[in-house]
């Protein structure tokens, strides 16, 4: 159905043929809850650091390939990270460093010595 001559974003899928809908409950993973918790803190009325609409703008700018390759919460996580870097709140280097430190910490926990 084409109601507007302007280009339709790849995220705007309402009305597209979708095939059968898998009627299975997906688990809400711990890290996914953490993503939502952090997004809630960044977007709340006292902070207004990253709004939900900014996050949406972020993943609507991924390009269709990246967008379709990521899950709902990965999209939110990646977009939120992009916006934080775009605004200069964290730098890519700081983030990479923190991820590395966190990964080491959790690897220690996971590996019994």
């Amino acid at each position, binding site marked *: 159905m084409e*109601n507007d001559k*302007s280009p339709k974003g790849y995220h705007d899928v*309402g009305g597209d043929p979708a095939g059968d809908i898998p009627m299975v409950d997906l688990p809400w993973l711990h890290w996914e809850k953490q993503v939502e918790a952090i997004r809630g803190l960044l977007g709340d009325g006292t902070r*207004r650091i990253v*709004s939900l*609409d*900014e996050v949406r*703008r972020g993943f609507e700018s991924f390009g269709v390939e990246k967008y379709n390759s990521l899950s709902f919460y990965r999209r939110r996580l990646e977009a939120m990270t992009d916006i934080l870097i775009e605004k200069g709140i964290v730098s890519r280097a700081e983030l990479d460093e923190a991820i590395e430190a966190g990964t080491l910490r959790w690897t220690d926990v996971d590996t019994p010595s």
Partner: protein
Amino acid sequence: MKRFAAGDVVRVLALGKTGHVRIPHYIRNQIGRVTAYCGTYLNPEDLAVGNTAGRAVDLYRVAFAQTQLWPDDMIPHHDTLVIEIYDHWLAPAEETPNAPRP
């Protein structure tokens, strides 16, 4: 300044805006009926680019006949789709058999 009230017939504009908008393509140029006024909110198109200083805009709840949106004989005639639309995406429209009854 509220432009519409519950019961008014409206057409959704096709503004052709780029960037983040909350109005899906399938609803553009469609005729519906306002069912409620939801209040004023900051424009998500502004918020999407980090602008929190923009003017708050009126938001309306609008009902559309499902049979008008989707050409499918299986859809019951009384089924409606209700969606919230910001003021600047709406225009007054003439009464039409396609607009759901209030």
